[in-house]
């Protein structure tokens, strides 16, 4: 899963899809995840990095990550 090349992102969690004109905002964790995906990290790597950094239940976060990825796909943010 990769963030589409032309998607504009900001560290504050604002996303702009220049092909469709859609824009989205996400919270700080969402922004961090997107920045990691933009660096070509795999979903598993993102899970590991976030779980190492924050006090979060891994299985719970994996479920959240799946849901977030689905949303990103639906909005054509991910390839």
């Amino acid at each position: 899963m990769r963030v589409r090349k032309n998607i504009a992102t900001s560290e504050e969690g604002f996303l702009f899809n220049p092909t469709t004109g859609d824009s989205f905002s996400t919270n700080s964790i969402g922004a961090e995840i997107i920045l990691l995906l933009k660096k070509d990290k795999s979903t598993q790597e993102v899970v590991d990095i976030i779980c190492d950094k924050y006090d979060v239940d891994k299985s719970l976060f994996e479920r959240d990550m799946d849901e977030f990825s689905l949303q990103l796909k639906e909005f054509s943010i991910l390839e």
Partner: protein
Amino acid sequence: MLTRTETKNKYGRKLVIAVTGLNAIDSPGPGVSVIRAIRECPDFECRIIGLSYESLEPGLYMHDLVDKTYQIPYPMGGTDSLMSRLNYIHEIENLDIIIPNFDAELFNFIKLRDKLKLMGISTFLPDLDQFEARDKIKLFNFGKEHDFFVPEDKIIYDMRDLRKIEENFDYPIVVKGKFYDAIIAHSMEQAEKAFQKIQAKWGLPIIVQEFIKGTEINIAALGDGKGTAISIIPMRKLYITDKGKAWAGVTLDDDALIDLARKFIHVTKWRGGCELEVMLTTDGKPYIMEVNPRFPAWIYLTAAAGQNQPASLVKMALGEEVEPFTEYEVGKIFIRYAWDLITDIREFQKISGTGEL
């Protein structure tokens, strides 16, 4: 000792450019945007002559944009009365270029194009056959001929024929006027009301069109008349008025939309500005809903994004070769707003009484 005064443009003089479409209601004319873009071009200086139809078109009173305004006869008055008025204006102003911006007036200006040229007034308009090929009434056949996605439609001259459309169309349908206005109807009762309303305003025929669901995209394009697109800017409507007009929009980066406009310019050899109204379906099919044969009201966005279409049209009208633009700023947003312009009754009286301001 005399020193030569340098003019900052290659034409060696201030260009005198006449522009129509100075109204700015909730369905605004493109004139004010066209002038704003032209004035921002650093390659020439200009004197702007407004050509108006009514005394309350806001552009008349924008003296920082429009140097002088003359009223001209309504399009239904025909070419003779228009020509006579333009002769009068030309004697005073020595016009270089006229940029008409209303669908309804274009026929007259195209008919007068050669006469205007003989007077030394340039235009940059499509030929009559180009103009008519993209007409709403012929859009379906045009689309089929050139392999564009276009909605099914039926041209209706009589209310009785409207009742037959249920054989071919499912609701909702779109009921459109030949120049402006479109109403979505969900039943025959609504369709009949829409028919009567639009007929009263714009006359016959009425176009009934298949309803296409999707994202509304508009594309402003400028053709050189030889098949090359000098500029193409796609814009997604972000805020839409109840008349379906974009009140805010953002420039897009979508090769499929650019290819669509390039193909349109190529197959029509379009000369001048135009706007493709596109409905992008969820499965990615770009349906051409309408082709407007002039710049749209949001045309200033093209200049803001780095492709000044009105200024390029001015240059081409004067015979200059303009290289096609290759880049523009994606994510550039326009947000329209209403502004209460204050003027004096004397100004209103002057334009109303003398037809000049």
